[in-house]
């Protein structure tokens, strides 16, 4: 049922009640309230098909991959490689070998910083990041710069929380070797014009561009060939899949030229004490036994999302974001942080005179899960002069009624805390 004034369009075209039944956790009652989960940018809930796939793996399929000659090992290797194919198609990778399965976005970025850095970064070279990056897309580059004597440059943002492209263009110089920028800001929701930014970099020489897609893959259709990015990273757990697994897409020309990140089982063709020959892509970058059930589960999650349709998901989430933005900005003293006209369904805000942690604590009492704090983007908080924000991030399984309850919860928090 819609409350008065709630839009009905999506309810008619988007079977949200049916979809919610796919997610067992959404039926949970906490402290007498139905769970309202608005912390999707931290991690998403898992559909039953994913949970079942992981369970089935352990009950019926468990074996190590790429090794054994026995039936189970062969079958599960096929399943794992099928998942790689699904992931590759999902982001339109040119070749399956360009899809490296990692532990998550953080490891994907660290892999590039370490391996690309070892080979291609020297003293005096420049790496460009942006002011809105998650710490995971700052710290690996900072460490690399310290180690190599390279220079980290930062693209500034404007008051709406958008990258200033003129400044970006000026930062690119003859020593720029790599640009690492987020596709969607985890704190502000801003969708950055990465395609345009990559095109600008292409005009300036041989510069590698890495896109942190952790917050984009769940909301947008990603096409790495259309973007022409050199690297693209994302995590399974933010994409309705199991945790502990993620993806690094890399152009073959770079991945072939880069040294192994970690060495170990599965990464080699031939080992002798004199010289080791490493395996071809993607195994060269996948040392040790991977998160097998995680990879398979991610494949299932992607197929589930494709079954609903990525563009339908994007439309639904935009409607939720617009509805929440309109409602929340009417609350007295509430200020939205991140007001770009192109945003994914991430809504960060502060309320004058109230600490985000207090607001989050009151919302928790009425069963609403939001994230509070600096969201691992301390430089961004410094830019806006705030200690943190309250962040509500929406998924296609959220409803307008839940946003109405968020509004009520916030009004209650203001009443109690003021």
């Amino acid at each position, binding site marked *: 049922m819609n409350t008065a004034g709630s839009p009905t369009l999506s309810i008619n075209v988007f079977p949200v009640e049916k979809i919610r039944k796919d997610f067992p956790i959404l039926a949970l009652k906490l402290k007498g309230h139905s769970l309202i989960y608005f912390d999707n940018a931290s991690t998403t809930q898992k559909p039953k098909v994913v949970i079942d796939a992981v369970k089935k793996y352990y009950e019926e399929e468990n074996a190590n991959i790429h090794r054994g000659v026995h039936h189970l090992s062969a079958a599960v290797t096929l399943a794992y490689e099928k998942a790689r194919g699904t992931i590759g198609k999902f982001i339109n990778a040119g070749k399956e070998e360009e899809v490296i399965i990692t532990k998550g976005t953080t490891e994907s970025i660290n892999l590039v910083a370490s391996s690309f850095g070892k080979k291609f970064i020297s003293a005096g070279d420049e790496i460009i990041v942006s002011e809105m990056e998650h710490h995971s897309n700052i710290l690996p580059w900072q460490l690399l710069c310290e180690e190599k004597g390279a220079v980290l440059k930062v693209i500034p943002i404007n008051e709406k929380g958008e990258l200033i492209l003129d400044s970006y263009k000026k930062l690119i110089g003859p020593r720029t070797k790599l640009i690492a920028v987020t596709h969607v800001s985890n704190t502000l929701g801003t969708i950055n014009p990465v395609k345009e930014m990559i095109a600008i970099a292409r005009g300036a020489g041989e510069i590698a561009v890495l896109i942190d897609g952790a917050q984009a893959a769940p909301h947008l259709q990603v096409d790495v060939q259309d973007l022409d990015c050199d690297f693209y990273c994302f995590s399974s757990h933010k994409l309705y899949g199991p945790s502990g697994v993620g993806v690094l897409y890399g152009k073959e020309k770079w991945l072939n030229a880069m040294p192994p990140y970690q060495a170990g089982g599965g990464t080699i063709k031939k080992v002798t004490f004199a010289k080791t020959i490493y395996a071809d892509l993607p195994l060269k970058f996948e040392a040790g036994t991977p998160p097998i059930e995680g990879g398979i589960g991610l494949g299932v999650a992607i197929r589930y999302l494709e079954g609903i349709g990525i563009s339908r998901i994007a439309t639904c989430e935009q409607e939720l974001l617009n509805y929440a933005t309109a409602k929340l900005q009417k609350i007295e003293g509430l200020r939205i942080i991140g007001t770009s006209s192109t945003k994914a369904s991430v809504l960060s805000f502060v309320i004058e005179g*109230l*600490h985000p*942690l*207090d607001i989050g604590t009151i919302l928790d*009492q009425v069963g609403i899960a939001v994230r*509070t*704090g*600096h969201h691992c983007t301390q430089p961004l908080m410094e830019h806006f002069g705030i200690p*943190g924000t309250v962040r509500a991030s929406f998924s296609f399984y959220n409803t307008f009624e839940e946003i109405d309850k968020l509004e009520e919860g916030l009004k209650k928090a203001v009443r*109690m805390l003021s």
Partner: protein
Amino acid sequence: MSIEEIEKEIIGEFELFGDEWEGKYEHLIDLGKSLPLIDPKHKTEDKTIKGCQSKVWLHSEFREGKVFYTADSDAIITKGLVGLIVRVLSGHTADEILEAKMEFIDKIGLKDHLSPTRANGLISMIKQMKLDALALKK
């Protein structure tokens, strides 16, 4: 009053609210809003206990064989809890403080606030209070 007696007193105060969270939190918020708990001159960087999200300031003094605490926080609910903890531990001997189990927080239904994920600095504050007691005792 002993630490245990103060804990019992607080548990009694919170029993009035039963399972009703609003009254309990309103009481905490009122505690948080009541008088500043710490002399502003002690709100310095070296007295700051950093939680991931809220800050806590703690000042410890040793007088006549007892440890006295004052503290503050930038988040009001944290400040209310800080006030309760100070009320329980302040004015006791170092040995009494070191032995305090602080079970009242669980008994008044606010154990969640001591979970490491709350990131409010309370666990670190209690630890620091005990460390200060130990150091001042020497």
